[in-house]
């Protein structure tokens, strides 16, 4: 089957009106040798030139663990003439049971000209029925998108890390939420980056003997890589939202002071250092320090709890991968609403928006 011969190629060019027909043919040709699988429609939108190939490469990896119908779109909104080109292909992998090829289909589109008007129809016309629609929006949000699109999207995936104007983007997301009657789940990859670190920190406090320590946290240090201040602030926002802290003072861009319920002060230091997006966390609660740091090998977290009377037993935990495939896979596997994200965001919204 020519379309599967090169996984990263865009596959077979097809006429827009014949996509379903050609997909059917693709599967008929490969019948017996492979199984088509799909748990979701996964649309990716980018205006970056060459993104079609790059995203196809990502899809080849993502579909190893997440069977889907991929709809990969590259848009050139500045082109003079309106033009839509399409290709179909399949990403095939040997299944986890090891005996058969499991394949996800991909439809690729190159849109030229009036992108925003073409986009909803391009997506809606090519959905695999009855499956949820996840949309990975790799651009900044704009107002001109047909609201109907958002009513069909179940999860919108974006990365606030790259936003140039946080305030306006959040406002647009809130509009999108309104248009979708609040049913759309906002999936921020900047938040996903924190998943493993949050998990590593949370497990310290699963132990009932550590519960009371949450109420005694007086200091937190968050080390982040250059360019990832927003990720570190989101982490602080998560602690604040979950532990009922309120921002009291922004002493400097790197020194925040929160007030806890007791009332007591909690000082949060943000330190910029080379490394992973957020690569070390230290929480001080009375005489105990809880620390999470990336191990030398890079894909493990070393976690430890240090107290005077106890021996330090550092433990290793998975750190996950912070590349796009790792983040998207983490996001797709999770499901459910992102209430906790929104709470965290609301706690530190002003800080993320550049004030006060």
């Amino acid at each position, binding site marked *: 089957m020519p379309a599967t011969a090169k996984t990263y190629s865009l596959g077979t060019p097809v006429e827009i009106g014949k996509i379903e027909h050609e997909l059917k043919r693709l599967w008929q040709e490969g019948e017996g040798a492979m*199984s088509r699988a799909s748990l979701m429609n996964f649309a990716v939108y980018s205006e970056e030139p060459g993104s079609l190939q790059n995203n196809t490469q990502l899809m080849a990896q993502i579909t*190893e663990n997440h069977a889907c119908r991929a709809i990969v779109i590259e848009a050139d909104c500045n082109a003079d003439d309106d033009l839509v080109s399409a290709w179909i292909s399949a990403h095939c992998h040997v299944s*986890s049971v090891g005996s058969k090829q*499991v394949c996800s289909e991909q439809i690729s589109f190159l849109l030229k000209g009036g992108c925003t008007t073409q986009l909803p129809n391009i997506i809606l016309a090519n959905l695999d029925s009855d499956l949820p629609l996840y949309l990975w929006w790799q651009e900044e949000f704009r107002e001109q998108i047909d609201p109907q699109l958002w009513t069909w999207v179940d999860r919108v995936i974006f990365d606030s890390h790259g936003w140039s104007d946080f305030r306006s983007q959040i406002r647009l997301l809130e509009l999108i939420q309104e248009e979708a009657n609040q049913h759309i789940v906002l999936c921020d990859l900047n938040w996903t980056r924190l998943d493993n670190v949050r998990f590593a920190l949370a497990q310290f406090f699963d132990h009932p003997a550590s519960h009371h320590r*949450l109420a005694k946290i007086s200091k937190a240090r968050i080390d982040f890589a250059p360019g990832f201040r927003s990720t570190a602030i989101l982490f602080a926002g998560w602690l604040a939202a979950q532990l009922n802290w309120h921002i009291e003072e922004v002493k400097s861009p790197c020194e925040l002071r929160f007030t806890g319920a007791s009332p007591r002060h909690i000082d949060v230091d943000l330190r910029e250092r080379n490394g992973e997006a957020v690569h070390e966390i230290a929480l001080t609660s009375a005489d105990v320090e809880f620390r999470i740091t990336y191990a030398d090998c890079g894909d493990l977290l070393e976690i430890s709890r240090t107290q005077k009377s106890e021996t330090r037993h550092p433990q290793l935990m998975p750190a996950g991968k912070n590349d796009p495939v790792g983040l998207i896979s983490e996001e797709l596997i999770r499901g*459910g609403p992102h209430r906790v994200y929104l709470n965290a965001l609301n706690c530190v919204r002003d800080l993320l928006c550049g004030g006060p």
Partner: protein
Amino acid sequence: MNRASDQPEPNPLREGLAARPVPQPCSIVIFGATGDLTHRKLVPALYNLAADGELPPGVVIVGFARRDKSDDEFRRDLEETTRKFSRQPVRDEIWNAFAQTILYHRSEFGDEAGYKQVTERLDEIDKSHGTRGNRLFYLAAGPDQFEAILKNLKAAGLNQTCKGSWARIIIEKPFGTDLTSARELNRAVRNSFTEEQTYRIDHFLGKETAQNILVMRFANAIFSPLWNTHYIDNVQITAAETLGVGTRAGYYEDAGALRDMVQNHLIQLLCLVAMEPPTDLSADSIRDEKVKVVRSLHRWSRSEIAANVVRGQYMEGNIHGEPVLGYRQEQNVNPNSQTETFVALRLFIDNWRWADVPVYMRVGKRLPKSATEISIHFKKAPAVLFNKDLRDLNVLVIRIQPDEGISLRIHAKVPGTSFRIEPVKMDFHYGTSFGKPSPEAYERLLLDAMSGDATLFARSDEVEEAWAFIDPIEEAWHAKKDAPELCFYPAGSWGPEAADNLLTRDGRAWRRL
């Protein structure tokens, strides 16, 4: 599923995280630590939990066995087998950290002093690792050692807990060999541990597909109205394996297929298929409903047993094109052995939902395929319109292993101008839809026991009720007079003809696997 009452309040930092809460740190003491189970299943499972970040920091594993070994020797042995049997490749960094938590304690199971020493060691661990008196004891030794271990644990005070800590015991099957011995074992367990502290492990229940039976039944409205005698014609449960008795002859000669598989695994699967919806997802609510199914199993009189239960033993034959020995020629098997390697049963659940629906079960060694599955065969549609000549029924198949998944057979018109109808299959494969491999059953069950969730473990009354059902069959088979005959089948076949006859006389047939 719910957690035990001794579990703490929720941790606010857990909200929204996909992974389940990490249990409290504890010491895990494995009795029979040099045995196969520890090497092939338990330690690889614990390693995988550690590698996935699900094992609590501070967990210490203490191997308790009779052989002379140092901590380092024990770790080296375990490393070798974990590399061989682990679900995921062993990473040196993780293994090295994990291995530091493994200790070895040499003692006879009946030696009181050995338990005193282990107590002292556990107390030290509590101080050094913050395990705070939480202990999980795993009986992976032979069942003949259970009583001595339980008695000595009690004598050493290891069954006791202080405020905020817990002590739990996991017991491996067999849970007795008949009702009397099961009661005896339960009494011995109760003398040392309460029912709440006791976790009887049945690894079939830790399998993803077994857990999915409840989700499929109670999270999908479409099945609920059909799940009863009005729409279901029969239920079939098959647990087939191509393997012979292998190195287990010592145990198997006494146990046989009925005790080894039916009393526990197959009856547990039947319970999940046949139980009423529980009032909630707590361990006891689910187990209350399961035990009602076992209690409702129709008890055959001795004369009825021959007509409803078939026992067989494999003879020489071929598996995958290779000649294999008959059971009686296997190593350590009595050449005149009467042990069954195959059982087929026709049984009924005497309750409102399942009245008159036969359940056919079969389990056997040296069958053509290795497969465990449950199939629900629905009644025919009314014999009018299309249905006059249709022979096949709608069948819902739940594949437990391998190739876990669910399929549904329906009827469809064959394209063309004539009106031909043929069965077609809608198929869901876990491996195809979800790329992520499922954790091993022991991973899930060990984590559940550490978390105090007994949902997937058998309760004493379930075990006893299952033996109460099995015992009359065993008695009939071993009666001096008129005992039902042992049938023979060639290895590589689907069992003796008598097993097919159980169904053909009802106008039915085993599902073709």
